[in-house]
């Protein structure tokens, strides 16, 4: 595993840990939408739509 791969793995491990933190549906949805902007450089806005049926 290269150092780039190592740092990517560490980065996403931290992201995953952050996303697991709330442990409640509504708060997790909010966090997912907000953190997407930090993770994906091109992303300026993010929304999550839930399937309801």
């Amino acid at each position: 595993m290269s150092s780039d791969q190592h740092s990517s793995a560490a980065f996403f491990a931290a992201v995953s840990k952050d996303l697991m933190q709330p442990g409640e549906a509504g708060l997790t949805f909010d966090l997912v939408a907000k953190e997407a902007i930090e993770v994906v450089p091109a992303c300026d806005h993010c929304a999550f739509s839930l399937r309801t049926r």
Partner: protein
Amino acid sequence: MSTVASSSPSARRWDELQHTLQQGPCVDAVWADDTYLAKDLAHDPRWPQWSPRVAAQGAGSVLAIRLASPDETLGALNMYADRANAFTADDVDLALIYASHAADAMSTAKLLTGLRIAVKSRHHIGIAQGILMLRYDLSQEQAFDTLRRYSSQTNIKIRDLAELVIETRGLPDLEILERGDPTRDHDADLPDSSAQESTSTG
């Protein structure tokens, strides 16, 4: 589908417009293919009603990714960029990995939320059972059976009925429930015939 989270009012508006029009990459990501990238919304012919409207409002490009657990499709994550051709191949890769982690977190959170509600409901049902046992001299099983029968007759979820029993310290009157006014004096209440029937089966 419904938009439940957004990082900005614009993102919420663009998502909600897809649900209203029933077209757009978010809708397709849930019901058709997993991932949609629209590099230039002003010139994308796939969603003829939606794309021009959001492009006019400042959306340049969009990447929509289905989020799913092993058991179900949760929804779609929709990433918008202000300019056209914003998403590179690296951005798409990062977004796909992120979406995978997001789906795991959402699935876990949904499960935990459901379990918390279930535990709380069971606790309330237990209290309601205790109230009925004391008030009407019923066994634990008879008290639960009474709750179940009332729930069935009134089409009120058993957890909501349990909260009513806790609030009123007795069985709500069926006629009052039908009129939507559960507040009244229950001092003279006795278990109805369904509770009496349950005695014979208990």
